[in-house]
């Protein structure tokens, strides 16, 4: 089976990788690219801890082949802060205690980031709908929802 030379932008940096057809994007990001912020939780695309931003859309990277990312732009939690300045969603999660064990957090943040691009001024119901692909066992979601709302307000006010 032939291996594939793929190339994609990861958090703004061009990366190259030699992958098998079957390699999952999440494994390549974590193991070949060494960016371990993106986690693996359920492997059946239910939990969302592996969520990354692929060409401007949230996807579950456990259910995307690495070869499919060839030529694309991928953003993970590591790409949220710019020049050492945290993104508003990161600030808000910290401020509102929107995380505990931290395992779902990267997926939750990268989804929240994209969701607020899609819907900059969401209601609570819309936030619940927008984050429904990300499971959290620790927080009971209430502070996560609050954090997304706070981040939205902050981003609106800028």
């Amino acid at each position, binding site marked *: 089976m*032939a291996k594939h030379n793929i190339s994609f932008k990861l958090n703004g940096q061009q990366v190259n990788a030699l992958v098998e057809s079957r390699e999952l994007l999440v494994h390549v990001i974590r193991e070949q690219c060494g960016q371990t912020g993106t986690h693996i939780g359920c492997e*059946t695309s239910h939990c969302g801890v592996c969520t990354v931003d692929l060409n401007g859309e949230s996807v579950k990277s456990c259910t995307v*082949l690495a070869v499919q990312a060839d030529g694309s732009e991928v953003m993970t939690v590591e790409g949220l802060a710019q020049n050492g300045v945290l993104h508003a969603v990161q600030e808000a999660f910290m401020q509102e205690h929107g995380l505990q064990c931290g395992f779902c957090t990267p997926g939750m943040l990268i989804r929240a980031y994209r969701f607020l691009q899609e819907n900059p001024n969401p209601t609570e119901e819309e936030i619940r709908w927008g984050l429904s692909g990300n499971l959290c066992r620790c927080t009971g979601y209430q502070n996560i929802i609050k954090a997304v709302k706070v981040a939205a307000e902050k981003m609106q006010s800028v």
Partner: protein
Amino acid sequence: MIPGKFEYHIPTTVDEVVALLGEYGDEAKILAGGHSLLPMMKLRFAEPAHLIDISRIGEIKGIHEQGGTVRIGAMTTENELIASELLQQKCPLIPAVARLIADPQVRNRGTIGGDIAHGDPGNDHPAAMMALDATFVLRGPNGEREVPANGFFLGTYWTDLQQGEIMTEIRVPPFTSGTGYGFNKLKRKTGDFATAASTVVLKLNGNTCADIRITLTNVGPTAFRADEAENILRGQVISEALIEQAAQQVMAVCEPAKDLRGDEEYKTHMAAEMTRRSIRDALARAKG
């Protein structure tokens, strides 16, 4: 959960897909959004030797209206269906169905064509397609053929899509005035298949039900149409009593499989309840 090995192909035209399908026969599988196929491959229930990724074929994406029908490329994603103004105006049932499929991330990958062609009785678009009287465009070695949604679904994981064929487009007649829809899906949680779902499309002529289609999801080996229930309502002024009769008729034809969502009795009752609600919703919408 690691998939087995396979050869990956990424054609850019439908013709190339057909050629690849011809070359590899049943060793090949088409990869659309991948959210049914890849988990099956990771569990090693599915181990195709060749995977044909159709995500870069522009000609089978997008939604437009042509010749009086709404045409949806098979690779149009669920989120694109939800976002489509055209569908919202001409066929709002489709975005309503898409909204209750899976979750936001999965809806970015999952496609209408994949949902239909997979043949899973739990998938939601098949029943909608039957209720809409949609037509599927299939392309194979002998060219293109159009098949009606009604008759396409033959069994569990089993459709009229022949080996060597690919679904390229879904054609849907737009709603005319006086048409209403109802879609009710009972599920345990976000991302689950329906315990039971019912889709209804009806057209009113004055207060009379000129036409109606009632379809059901996950209460038989495939999505199916409850035509005897339709017959009870067609040509009538729909009343609660008639809705009840139709619901009872739906119960008579359900053949659900027992699983963790519930037993046969529950699912049968839920198919009826979803149908009651969908008829009421469709009626309200048809009345505007």
